[in-house]
């Protein structure tokens, strides 16, 4: 800001810059290290020669992973889940946030509905009763078990309803005088005006569905129904060799467990890494608008 040219401040500035660069490296170096391992030969990886650059560069691990039917199937389940889940989540977020953004004098039941939804943030039935409900509804081993239990994201609803409330009332009144109903006001007025907030919420929803793993693990009895992250959980974290076929095991001796794990980790992170830079500037704005209030 002002008057920063004392020697002490200059020294601080230099140290600060180094520190901040260091912190950001700390956040990406582990990912780059994994990337380097995934492209290295198994012997180099095993011998510990790899740091941030591939040693004896090879595509072998990726060829192996991509040729695996389990990996592809899990990827398909995830893509389906993201498409279906994001569509349902966003539709519900919008049509729930709109009525709740009305004032109580316009919509008398508002407070009742608000508490009905907010109470679910405060109190949960817990893991086991939720599992039993999903099971009794016959959703086990279907994609709906991954999509429906979390269909109403109450936090996103609150974020969006707070955003809706910042929109000027006059617009809505003018439209109402021209004969617009709630549907028109919502879809032709509110939604187009809320694109930054909607972009933020959509990004979080996409990432949320892409990254979910626990529901896949418990609601899917058969590994071929696992979404990608649940599949990875069993292969990379639990080291479950039972899921590998015998030909896989033979191949593994030639390409090493470590490089294939790295390749799978990187492939699963890739979509997030690709979308993220483009949406990054949106979400910073969106979060600020939604969370910091006057």
């Amino acid at each position, binding site marked *: *800001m*002002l008057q920063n040219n*004392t020697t*002490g*401040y200059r020294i601080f*500035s230099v140290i*600060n*810059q180094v*520190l*901040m*660069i260091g*912190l950001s490296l700390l*956040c990406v170096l*582990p*990912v780059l290290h*994994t990337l380097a391992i995934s492209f290295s030969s198994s012997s180099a990886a095993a011998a*510990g020669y790899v740091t941030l650059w591939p040693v004896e560069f090879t595509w072998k691990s990726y060829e192996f992973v991509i040729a695996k039917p389990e990996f592809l199937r899990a990827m398909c389940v995830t893509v389906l889940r993201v498409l279906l889940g994001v569509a349902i989540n966003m539709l519900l977020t919008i*049509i729930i946030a*709109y*009525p*709740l953004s009305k004032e109580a004098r316009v*919509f*008398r039941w508002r407070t009742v509905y*608000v508490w*009905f*939804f*907010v109470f679910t943030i*405060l*109190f*949960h*039935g*817990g*893991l*086991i*009763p*939720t*599992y*039993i*409900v*999903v099971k*009794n509804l016959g959703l086990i081993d279907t994609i709906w078990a991954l999509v429906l239990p979390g269909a*109403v994201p109450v936090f996103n609803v609150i974020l969006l309803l707070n955003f809706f409330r910042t929109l000027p009332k006059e617009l809505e009144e003018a439209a109402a005088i021209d004969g617009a109903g*709630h549907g028109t006001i919502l879809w032709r007025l509110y939604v187009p005006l809320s694109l930054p907030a909607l972009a933020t919420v959509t990004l979080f929803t996409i990432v949320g569905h892409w*990254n979910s*793993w*626990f529901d896949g693990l418990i609601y899917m009895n058969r590994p071929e129904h696992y979404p990608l*992250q649940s599949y*990875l*959980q069993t292969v*990379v*974290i639990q080291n479950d060799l039972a899921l590998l076929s015998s030909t896989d095991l033979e191949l593994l001796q030639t390409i090493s467990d470590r490089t294939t*794990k790295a390749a*799978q*980790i990187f492939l*699963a992170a890739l979509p*997030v890494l690709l979308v993220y830079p483009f949406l*990054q500037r949106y979400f910073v704005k969106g*979060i*600020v608008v939604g969370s*910091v209030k006057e």
Partner: protein
Amino acid sequence: MRARKNRELPLHLMLLPGVVLVLLFSYGPMLGIVMAFQEFVPTKGIFGSSLSGWDNFLYVMELPGTFRVLFNTVYIAVMKIIAGIVVPVTVALLLNELRRSWLRRGVQTLIYLPHFMSWIILGGILIDILSPSHGIVGRFLGLFGIEPIFFLGDNGWFPYVLVISNEWKEFGFSSIVYLAALTGINPSLYEAAVVDGAGRWKQTRHITLPGILPIIILLSTLSLGQILNAGFDQVFNLYSPQVYESGDILDTLVYRIGLVDAQYGVAAAIGLFKSVISFFFIVISYWMAYRLANYRIF
């Protein structure tokens, strides 16, 4: 009056699908809490199983590891809450001092990144780099003559690995709100301070810190509601039987007793205990946030 009713009807219809889904998947499981007081047999269901009163709770109390698990949960959660305030505030203050805007934006982009990756991916990376046999952290420590440490298999280290790796994932993202608060501080305050001869440090102490204090208080009180959430996703993907002693938390215990051992009633009892205590802490934290920072969620 009729006209008003007609105007409200579409609003009810819009809420209907959400209400049905929430009734099924949020309020439905709340009814299922009865299981905690039953000798639950899956084939008989909630209506067919016999009531057992407080038996499940007594059984849990008598399990040798229960209090250890409760302690782990609170211990890890509290350390995470403290680190989750101190580190992001410090980082936001330091980031705010970066004058080159390209550098600042670059740093921000990179430190938000880990937040968007799942604990499966980060867990996979951590397991690899922390491995005592081939992990790069071990090799790095080796340069200083330090013997490889089995970070994920050592009860002394494990809770700290949890806290540090969680902070690694979240500190950047958590700093966003503080950065937003910093940009909201009136610049004329700094000008006035400079006229009065305040240096950079004094400006920070007397203007910047008080300026973001409300949001610090707000987020600290709200985090109180998380006191029994030590982070299931993270612990589940990093722990192993070797570190159950220091790393087992209520959520992982519920998973093992309920879904692995199929003792539904017992697991539901632990889950209910957690839900009830958490409910009180969340309500208290929202109430405090309202009193201290005038915060309302909607």
